């Protein structure tokens, strides 16, 4: 299982902040996981990269590139550009 988190605008768009997920067959990296989640419907597709807004992804709390590996037990988070400070 992996833990998937969504924050801010993305959390609202997909309608959940957190879920546990069995790593889908064939999914090995961030790009693969994103593509899989985008197939869930238009809201997911737009929120996770199909729309104009940029999406950042962190694996185990470090921001990574799309080719970064995702493995069982990982925590993967999707969020918009940050606006703190």
């Amino acid at each position, binding site marked *: 299982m992996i833990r998937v988190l969504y*924050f801010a605008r993305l959390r609202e768009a997909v309608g959940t902040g957190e879920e546990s997920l069995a790593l889908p067959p064939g999914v090995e990296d961030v790009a693969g996981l994103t593509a899989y989640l985008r197939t869930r419907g238009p809201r997911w597709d737009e929120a996770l990269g199909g729309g104009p807004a940029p999406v950042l992804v962190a694996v185990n*709390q470090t921001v990574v590139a799309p080719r970064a590996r995702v493995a069982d037990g990982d925590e993967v988070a999707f969020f918009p550009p*940050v606006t703190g*400070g």
Partner: protein
Amino acid sequence: MRVQVRVQEQPFDAGAEVEAIARGDAGTGAVVSFVGRVRADTADAPGGPVSRLTLEHYPGMTEKALSAIVAEAQTRWELRAVTVIHRVGALAPGEAIVLAAVAGAHRAAAFAACEFIVDRLKTRAPFWKRERTAQGERWVEARAEDAQAAGRWD
């Protein structure tokens, strides 16, 4: 080096934190601090004055990201103490959101490190602001100026 990183809902006393950062350290000759506050009027945002700001964050990663920023500042400058406090939850205009305080032997390193920490925090720490105005609520957009400011340190 003494490092303090805190993410909290409660207000903080910036004066007390700045006073405390170098207490008892005879080697500190300079303390530089930055306090970020909630602005009611945002020139780039329609909808009138902001009546409330709500900050969401990514518990766990936030502390990790802030600590990593402070650790990088340590590798670039000789510092004696750093305090970073960032609030989350609901804030009113005029309230302090963030404090970055840096103590060093001399002012140049303290000034530079404080600016570095704030620039990096704005582009790398997972916080998201939501504004309430008379027209409703909206997520604050990331600013290109912040990315440019942070890019100076790459």
